[in-house]
């Protein structure tokens, strides 16, 4: 039955696409939500089919995590083809995406039909997959009906990351780390592994990037729900407990970590870890391969996850008796206490060792006691009480399970790193949504509640998580909520600029503007800017100084500022954000790189005569793009 359902859905989709092709033409696919969703789903699950059909491994497991290497390998092959044929990457890359769509369909057919000859494994697997996705569908409805607005993009990270596939596609660039392709990455946090996948999802086929990001936030949790479900099913042997676990995991909004909320390098790395953990026990060669996969995916959480796998392999696996397990459990608890107290006493890595990084940002990147404790608690909310109960339960168990200790170990590592407070320590909350939920579900399942009680308990747990998630998500949206109530990084007034940049290609143009507009220009116009949202503080100050007092001297000072490359034709994009800053003397944005005014509706009644004159001196004319944008070119 599940085979038939899956095949019917897929054939239905393909039929719909054929129909759309003949009625609306090829161009319509760029804005078609169903096609974008299909593209994202097939791209994210292609490695699973590769693992199952080609490598004869599990659909969701260690090999499927490794199979994600398909995307960078495919990209490299396309670069080779481009070099051999003399074609540009923008001509070749779309064929790669189409090839992947066809490959997915072939592999899917082979999975379903080929499998039927030797029993009915695919029927069972697809049944399990649909069971796992059911709570994710409920989650998607909850989130996208009650919280998110249509076509909202609520992570500036997406805009930053898309500049890399943009450069690959439009400029034919090949880069190992994103900073080699785009000047928006001040530090090397990952390789371009993630960006080759993102390119397939949002850039290489020319789909609308804004719609792609929106749909990605819907499809990513649907895909991730499957291995979470399978892990929980393995632990509890119960479908309903596993489904509850999936729902609770997705309803955990980890601030900074964003476990299953956004598709980012760090969450992709977490997805890899979850796939890897489907293997009950990793052998040494597998562990080495897993480490080699996790490290390039993210240079901070990758080592954390790899370290965790080695902790399981070297320590937890070798715990032989209850005494050793008890000692480890107590050590974990003491570590939390120690690092928490050290933090309360004022210890912080960012303050002690990372003062240079703080100078770049303009302020501390972490909240401090008591705000940091409150912020961390809010990630799970009242769920922490159940984590505590689960810990006590493990502690008093006569026969302790190594899996429980591993789960507690991960949570402990996250807390320790958080309280050590290196820059952006909130990222170490990542994984909480998975590890805490597996621990809690396992604990509750073991208690063996009667059906009625179980039903009540499910209702209460969903309410606890649902309420906390709703508050966390909405608080997160605060920055993205514009004056007109729209909650998105894409501002209505900015659409005129996006349209202008789409219609008027500006090759060899280097734009300087306010940091937020620069991000929009770089992400959606593929035009170089002064490090976009990460425009250095001093450059911001020099830019504002020039705008307020335009003369050869202040212009020269601006030209020699950090982030402005010599020899480039510098074009000023005057915006409502800048105008408001000058008119209302609002200058916080020049002292902190995260101080980004999102609203762009302040009317530009008049641009200073001095500025117009000085720009004329530089042979720049005014181009009125809209009421909110004036380009000097």
């Amino acid at each position: 039955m599940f085979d038939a359902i899956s095949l019917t859905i897929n054939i239905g989709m393909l039929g719909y696409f054929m129909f759309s092709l003949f009625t609306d033409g090829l161009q319509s696919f760029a804005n078609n939500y169903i096609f974008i969703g299909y593209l994202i789903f097939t791209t994210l699950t292609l490695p699973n089919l590769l693992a199952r059909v080609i490598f004869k491994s599990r659909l969701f497991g260690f090999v499927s995590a490794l199979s994600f290497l398909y995307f960078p390998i495919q990209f490299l092959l396309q670069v080779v083809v481009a070099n051999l044929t003399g074609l540009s990457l923008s001509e070749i890359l779309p064929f790669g995406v189409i090839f992947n769509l066809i490959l997915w369909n072939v592999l899917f057919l082979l999975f379903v039909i080929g499998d039927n000859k030797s029993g009915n494994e695919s029927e069972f697997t697809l049944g399990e997959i649909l069971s796992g996705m059911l709570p994710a569908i409920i989650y998607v409805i909850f989130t996208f009906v009650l919280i998110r607005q249509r076509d909202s993009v609520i992570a500036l990270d997406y805009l930053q990351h898309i500049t890399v596939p943009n450069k690959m596609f439009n400029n034919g660039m090949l880069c190992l780390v994103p900073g080699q392709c785009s000047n928006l990455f001040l530090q090397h946090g990952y390789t371009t592994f993630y960006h080759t996948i993102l390119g397939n999802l949002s850039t290489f086929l020319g789909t609308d990037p804004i719609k792609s990001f929106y749909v990605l936030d819907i499809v990513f949790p649907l895909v991730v729900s499957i291995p979470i479900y399978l892990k929980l099913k393995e632990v509890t042997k119960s479908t309903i407990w596993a489904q509850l676990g999936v729902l609770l995991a997705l309803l955990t909004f980890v601030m900074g970590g964003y476990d299953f909320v956004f598709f980012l390098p760090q969450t992709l790395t977490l997805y890899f870890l979850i796939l890897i953990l489907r293997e009950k026990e990793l052998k040494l060669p597998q562990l080495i391969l897993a480490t080699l996969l996790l490290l390039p995916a993210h240079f901070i959480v990758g080592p954390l996850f790899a370290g965790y796998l080695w902790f399981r392999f070297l320590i937890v696996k070798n715990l032989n008796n209850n005494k050793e397990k008890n000692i480890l459990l107590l050590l974990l608890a003491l570590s939390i206490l120690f690092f928490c107290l050290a933090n309360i006493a004022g210890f912080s890595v960012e303050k002690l060792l990372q003062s240079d990084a703080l100078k770049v940002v303009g302020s501390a990147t972490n909240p401090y006691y008591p705000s940091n404790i409150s912020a961390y608690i809010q990630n799970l909310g009242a769920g922490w009480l159940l984590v505590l109960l689960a810990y006590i339960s493990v502690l008093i168990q006569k026969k302790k399970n190594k899996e429980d200790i591993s789960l507690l170990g991960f949570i402990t590592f996250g807390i320790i790193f958080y309280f050590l407070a290196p820059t952006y320590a909130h990222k170490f909350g990542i994984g909480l949504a998975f590890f805490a939920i597996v621990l809690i579900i396992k604990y509750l399942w073991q208690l063996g509640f009667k059906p009625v009680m179980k039903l009540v308990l499910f209702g209460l747990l969903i309410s606890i998580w649902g309420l906390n998630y709703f508050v966390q998500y909405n608080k997160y949206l605060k920055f993205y909520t514009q004056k007109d109530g729209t909650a998105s990084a894409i501002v209505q007034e900015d659409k005129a600029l996006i349209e202008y940049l789409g219609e008027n290609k500006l090759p060899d143009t280097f734009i300087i503007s306010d940091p937020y507009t620069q991000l929009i220009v770089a992400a959606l116009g593929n035009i170089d800017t002064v490090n976009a949202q990460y425009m250095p503080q001093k450059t911001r100050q020099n830019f504002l100084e020039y705008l307020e007092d335009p003369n050869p001297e202040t212009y020269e000072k601006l030209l020699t500022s950090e982030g402005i490359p010599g020899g480039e034709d510098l074009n000023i994009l005057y915006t409502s954000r800048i105008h408001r800053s000058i008119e209302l003397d609002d200058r916080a944005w020049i002292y902190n790189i995260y101080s980004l005014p999102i609203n762009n509706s302040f009317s530009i009644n008049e641009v200073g005569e001095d500025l117009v004159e000085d720009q004329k001196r530089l042979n720049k004319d005014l181009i009125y793009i809209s009421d909110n944008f004036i380009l000097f070119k």
Partner: protein
Amino acid sequence: MKTFYLKLLTIIVVLAGIYLSINRYHQYAQYKNFEIINERQSMIIQLPNAEYIEIISRNDHVTDYKEITEKPFNVVTNIQKNSTLENSIMRTDFFYEYIENKENKREVIITPIDSKNIDINITSTTAYQFKEGLKYVIQLDYTNKTEFRETQELGGVYFEDKGCKVEIYDPNLDYDATENRQTLLLKREYSPSVEYNLKLTISCKD
């Protein structure tokens, strides 16, 4: 038996969890008698009567009421506010402003407690030569003319306007109002580090 107690404990914990979650949601969703706007070089407490109270660093002054009147934050060399992206990511529940004018530093933390009450903490570090009678003064500017009166409770001043009553409690209350009846001046004996811990209670008719 152990399982029974664990089950019981679990039920109690889950019920406590429900209470805490509803409480958190209620705190988030409840209608508040104020909105904090943390922009430019001031902190604004917007009231439902369309008026607002503004605390502007530029208005802080050091005075002996005779010869000296200095404004330590008339010029600003650094401003930090947590009202934008940073606040969304770091998830702090208070509003923060840090102003610097070379060696002079001023930090404001506004923490909404519930729908009516707000804690305001202002710490100002300045470097002026000590003089007898020298005062550090901050201003709470209201957008309308009003009468500032003392509350029955010690250390409190209040005013009423357009259906809203605003009570300001300062444990070391030493205040004055300006002639235009729009500004409350809160004074401290001058010292290099001056701290204010104010409590505001805002009650408005529905």
